[in-house]
């Protein structure tokens, strides 16, 4: 047996890999550096489940949706494979974000690791694009509107925006060519680029190592200094260790936990919900996948003067800023989070901002939407016959598209039970007829019969006294 192994190591040229990769000595890495291993694991899951999905998926606008339904509901364990693909994709973006934050906080991109960092930045953008393309292929309502959001962003690009839309869409109309293009990028081009870039990233990690604890002790001005400090720790009898299996085992908590979470999420929630087939004839309520929620909130907060160019400028600026970071961050040669207060502050602020925006997106207080049902009457409140008619008219005239009453309804406009000032009956009538300039409310002058206006005003007048709710 041993002879066979020796023969294979020799004939398949594995000696170099064994001696210089698996058995090389590295500084003992803290457990949290396992996020990289976790992403390798996720990539493997994506490849395997993606290939299985590709066996059954049909990239045709007529059949794509049905093929996903078939995978989910009829193919044996298809739901599980789709679930793994979906959750590992989302989690990849999540872990990649932490990986990025960690490198910024500790200065993991400092010399001689600039190349590793730049390949990583490319991977960041590629993974985000892949995670977006993945849910377009479902070709349900949400997929189509997600695609149109992306196309609208490309349309903002000055001079070539229109051409970019035509190239991505495959023509002047959303058509079967659109889906085949998205499919080709997600299934052929994307995975090839991912595999190549990940391999290169890992190769550079092996070559230059990752940030060692000894490097955090004092500023390292030259690459020679860094190499010496790194090598000294790697060779040290107990501050260094053999990469395989010692380091791999030490770093295994995060990958193992990641795998457990992916399987748990798949079992608990199944694959992503399928919305009605994407034909676009119904008004729908599109929503991005959870890892883009923060960006959606950001988009909603932009004033019109900025929103017109923000969406193409943001990724470009982000890319340039990240790519330039190792070459700009040269005031000190300090490494490690403890020596980098500014970087740590920035990272904390970014994380807080993303969490805040995500929570805000869940509430979406900016969204007004037509509702047919009149606002609920709070418990313990009795309406007269007239105010009850006013309540119904409140919905007929779309007041409840924007206004909540005692907590029931959208947050876009003031809740009628929580107005900042108390209005008289006549005051409400005047407001409805002529909303002040700058208020996003339609004038109902000449649209509402006198009697109905009075009824709505009476309801609003009473609603001011409702218990505030929520």
């Amino acid at each position, binding site marked *: 047996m041993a002879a066979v192994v020796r023969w294979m190591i020799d004939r398949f040229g594995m000696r170099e890999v064994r001696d210089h990769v698996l058995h090389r000595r590295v500084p003992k890495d803290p457990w949290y550096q396992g996020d990289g291993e976790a992403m390798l694991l996720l990539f493997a899951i994506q490849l395997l489940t993606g290939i299985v999905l590709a066996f059954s998926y049909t990239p045709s606008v007529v059949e794509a949706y049905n093929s996903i339904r078939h995978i989910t509901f009829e193919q044996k364990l298809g739901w599980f494979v789709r679930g793994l693909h979906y959750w590992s994709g989302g989690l990849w973006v999540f872990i990649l974000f932490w990986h990025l934050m960690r490198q910024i906080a500790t200065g993991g991109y400092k010399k001689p690791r600039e190349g590793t960092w730049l390949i990583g930045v490319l991977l960041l953008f590629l993974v985000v694009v892949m995670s977006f393309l993945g849910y377009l292929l479902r070709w349900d309502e949400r997929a189509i509107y997600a695609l*149109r959001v992306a196309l609208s962003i490309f*349309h903002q690009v000055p001079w070539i925006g229109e051409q970019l839309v035509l190239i991505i869409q495959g023509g*002047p109309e959303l058509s079967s060519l659109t889906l085949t293009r998205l499919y080709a990028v997600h299934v052929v081009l994307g995975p090839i680029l991912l595999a190549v870039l990940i391999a290169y990233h890992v190769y550079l990690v092996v070559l230059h190592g990752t940030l060692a604890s000894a490097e955090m002790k004092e500023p390292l001005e030259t690459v020679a200094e860094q190499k010496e400090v790194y090598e000294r720790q790697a060779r040290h009898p107990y501050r260094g260790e053999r990469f395989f299996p010692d380091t791999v085992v030490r770093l295994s908590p995060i990958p193992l936990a990641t795998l457990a979470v992916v399987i748990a999420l798949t079992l608990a929630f199944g694959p992503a919900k399928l919305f009605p087939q994407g034909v676009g004839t119904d008004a729908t309520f599109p929503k991005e996948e959870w890892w883009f929620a923060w960006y959606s909130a950001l988009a909603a907060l932009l*004033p019109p003067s900025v929103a017109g160019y923000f969406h193409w400028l943001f990724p470009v600026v982000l890319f340039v800023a990240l790519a330039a970071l190792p070459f700009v961050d040269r005031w000190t040669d300090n490494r490690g989070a403890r020596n980098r207060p500014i970087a740590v502050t920035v990272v904390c602020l970014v994380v807080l901002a993303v969490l805040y925006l995500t929570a805000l997106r869940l509430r979406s207080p900016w969204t007004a939407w037509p509702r047919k049902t009149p606002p609920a009457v709070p418990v313990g409140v009795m309406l007269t016959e007239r105010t009850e008619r006013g309540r119904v008219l409140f919905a007929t005239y*779309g007041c409840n598209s924007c206004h909540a009453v005692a907590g029931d309804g959208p947050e876009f406009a003031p809740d009628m039970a929580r107005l900042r000032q108390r209005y008289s009956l006549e005051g409400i009538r005047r407001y409805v007829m002529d909303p002040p300039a700058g208020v996003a409310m339609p004038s109902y002058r000449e649209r509402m019969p006198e009697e109905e206006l009075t009824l709505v005003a009476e309801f609003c007048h009473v609603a001011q006294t409702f218990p505030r709710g929520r």
Partner: protein
Amino acid sequence: MRRRTLFKWLLGAAGAVMGSVVVVPAVISAFSPAGRSQSRAWRPLGPLRSFPLGDVVDAAVPPRREAYPVEVAAAQVVYVWQRTRSDFVVFSRTCTDLGCAVKYDPGSEFYYCPCHGGIFNKSGERVAGPPKKPLYRYATRVREGVLEIDLRSVPAMA
């Protein structure tokens, strides 16, 4: 020039020629949908009597399915407002901010975008939210009592 330098140059040149013979046609072919034709694409929306005067109604253009590429209907549900006897206003449902489909509310006579809070009034002007431009408006014409719109008169993704 040394022999080795010459060989390097020749190899580089040969590689460039071989590469461009493949790369250039591939790129041209992949990017061929660019360069939008100026031609118009008139599509019928329905007979004039199906659009009540003064009200906003939605109308669907059946997607073309007979020729390749097969169209998806998504781009082709529109809002039609017969403002006066002779004046038809046809809006794309595509929000001018990021392209989600707006919904018309006859109660408030506003268009609401479900994504980022864009609101437009009956004339398509922005009332609230991030949108900067008014709703995309199609060119219209009437042929033999049927209202038609030009699909190419709005941006390609609208």
